[in-house]
């Protein structure tokens, strides 16, 4: 149901570029995996997938046509020395439409300069190209553009000096700590995550008593709950970030982004009226799960290397935590210093929470209607 909603929202794609297919090759000794994304739109031209001619491709139509898609594609790709077999299928949505994903594998060792015969859509669209990325363990990715009108392409291994070679181009290898920086950067510019944390922190320098909020006496009394909140948030978002990054769980951003806005609204509301029957730590944990998916949405852009995936993901997460600690540290210190202010409850907790609720509400509207309202 949720996926359906996501699909409906993003159903209509518009393209302003020529036809491309994407090949991701992961070469290891005696094993090669290949992921091949081919646009459904292009396949429809070649194979006429739209059997009921209503201008739309349904999952049923694609499923029915899958054997034809597979045999059509496999007949037009040959890698020297590697016999490919299919291992799975999928669908992917990209900027310019939906793509059929073929997962292939072979027990060969990819040669240093593999010769790839690629003739997909040669007679359907001569401007089509296959954009191939070849990843070998510990080496920079080799990018190669496959032209169906050429019988075969020999992809040269890349070297730094070879950076502008026509057939293979090396992408600059990421620095060892690149993803740490990305993590820090992402949380510092993730205003919704920051606002959520601030909402949780506003009453942290207070205690909830029978008479209402009272300022804590010692910093240590504030730090403990704060640490508890941060830990809960961190553990929760790490879990879902990992799950999403490994593609074990996937929720569309059209659901996640509004949901994040809702978590902010509820956290802010709880400051003013106690709405949650459970402890704040539990609430933080549950909401943290949702925020983790929000962090994951940036991962697809970062091109985490499949080989060092775990290490890169760890770096990213650590970066998030470092940024988080910075924000929380600054905020807690500031709030602690004004906690005795007579109007703290009114202005900081109440007023701050109201502002947060308003912002989150606007974000919610923005993210569900896709109408930009806010400057941030």
């Amino acid at each position, binding site marked *: 149901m949720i*996926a*359906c909603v996501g*699909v409906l929202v*993003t*159903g*209509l*794609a*518009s*393209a*302003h*570029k*020529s*036809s*491309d297919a994407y090949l991701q090759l992961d070469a290891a000794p005696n094993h090669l995996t290949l992921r091949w994304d081919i646009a*459904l*739109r292009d396949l*429809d*031209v070649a194979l*006429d997938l*739209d059997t009921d*001619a209503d*201008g*739309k*491709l*349904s*999952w*049923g139509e*694609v499923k029915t046509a899958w054997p034809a898609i597979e045999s059509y594609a496999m007949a037009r790709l040959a890698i020297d020395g590697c016999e490919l077999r299919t291992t799975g299928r*999928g*669908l*992917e*949505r990209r*900027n*310019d*439409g*939906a793509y059929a994903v073929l997962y292939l594998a072979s027990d060969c060792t990819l040669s240093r300069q593999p010769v790839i015969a690629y003739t997909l859509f040669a*007679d*359907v*669209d*001569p*401007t089509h*190209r296959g*954009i191939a990325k070849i990843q070998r363990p510990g080496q920079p990715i080799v990018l190669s*553009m496959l032209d169906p009108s050429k019988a075969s392409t020999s992809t040269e291994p890349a070297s730094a000096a070879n950076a*502008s070679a*026509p057939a293979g181009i090396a992408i600059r290898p990421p620095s060892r700590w690149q993803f740490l920086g990305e993590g820090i*950067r992402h949380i510092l*510019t993730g205003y919704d995550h920051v606002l959520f944390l601030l909402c949780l922190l506003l009453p942290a320098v207070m205690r909830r008593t029978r008479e209402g909020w009272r300022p804590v006496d010692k910093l240590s009394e504030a730090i403990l709950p704060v640490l508890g909140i941060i830990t809960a948030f961190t553990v929760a978002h790490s879990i879902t970030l990992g799950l999403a990054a490994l*593609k074990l769980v996937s929720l569309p*951003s*059209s659901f996640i*982004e509004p949901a994040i806005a809702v978590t902010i609204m509820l956290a802010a509301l709880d400051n003013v009226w106690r709405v949650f029957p459970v402890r704040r730590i539990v609430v933080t944990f549950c909401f943290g799960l949702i925020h983790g998916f929000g962090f994951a*949405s940036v991962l*697809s*852009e970062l091109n985490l290397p499949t080989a060092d995936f775990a290490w890169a993901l760890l770096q990213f997460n650590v970066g998030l935590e470092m940024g988080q600690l910075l924000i929380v540290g600054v905020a807690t210190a500031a709030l602690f210093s004004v906690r005795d202010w007579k109007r703290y409850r009114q202005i900081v907790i109440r007023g701050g929470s109201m502002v947060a609720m308003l912002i989150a509400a606007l974000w919610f509207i*923005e993210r569900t209607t*896709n109408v*930009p309202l806010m*400057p*941030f």
Partner: protein
Amino acid sequence: MRCPYDRSVRSRTRRAWALAAGLFVVALSQPGFAEPITPTRDDEIVEVLPAASGTRDEDRRLRKLVRGRPGDAAVAVMVARRYLARAREAGDPRFAGLALAALHPWPDATTAPDDVLLLRATLQQYLHDFDASVASLRLLLARPEGEHMAQAWLTLATVLRVQGRYAESDEACRRVGLAGVQVYSSACFAENAALRGEVESARKTFETLLANPRLPTATQGWLLTSLAELETRDGHAASADAAFRSVLRLGPDAYAAVDYADFLIDQGRPSEALKVLKDETRTDAVLLRLAIAGTRASAATATRDVAEMRDRIALADQRPDACKFHGREQAMFALAIDHAPARALELARGNVELQREAIDLLVLAEAARASGEADAIDEARRLKATLGVYDRRIDAVL
């Protein structure tokens, strides 16, 4: 050529968007946006197929037609023309690929029928493969009936003009006249003359031709646009403005709209540029001007348009040779939006190897000036002198 693509600019710019008065659309415009689709029911729609002005039925009929009559040149040419029109309408180059495919049965240019070869040359021109286009046209025009092919001569004159080969273009203009179409021949000459600086005579020619009351609207539009471009390069803003407005009064004209938008942006009237482009299909050329004008005018739509243009550039750049074919737009974007003169200069340099219209030289000059490199500025001056282009805007920059 490896496309210069600066990721750190994107991160900096991302923060700037968040902080500046701009608007941010989530998810769908994420560059390299890719997420798995997990349908649960058979009747769930996974893709809506593009349907432009033709209906889906017409599409399938055309495809069936081509498949059923593989040797029929007339059918193939008709189908290919339809596809080219769709490509222009939608700003979607995939249709041009489909058009080329329809002409596949005649791969050998020496034996292909005349209209197949002409259409292939037109498609090559559309896809910015100018050398191939010129080659196809020369082959075509070398045939015995070649001297009567006014359209082919005119297309050749246009492509040569884009490449900055004015003398050869003039020769083609002359042959248009010999093929019997005086109006286009005169206009063709006048365009080249205007570019070379013979502004007075060119202006007079255009005005004389326009005085004819029985001119078809399309021709009128073309003449007025050429006149407007002349006035722009000669520095007469008011006359250029009037000419552009006249074109757009005749009816929608995507090419003129983009031209006019460039003029308005240069004149410091970005909000008017936005109005002009409001109803145009968002081709790359249109979107670029919307992004630039929107940024200058601090429009509400600016950030979204900038983001979308950035995405398109990123997407196109996945092909290693992309910046060659999109160099002009990418250079303009790098200069006007990212304020990255070094990258703009590199892109502009690559671009002028492919095409050398006045705007290409202007972008090169502006990039050179912005980068402050003395030899880049010299290089731009020399290129302008070699081609013999007359353009007061370029003079002002250099």
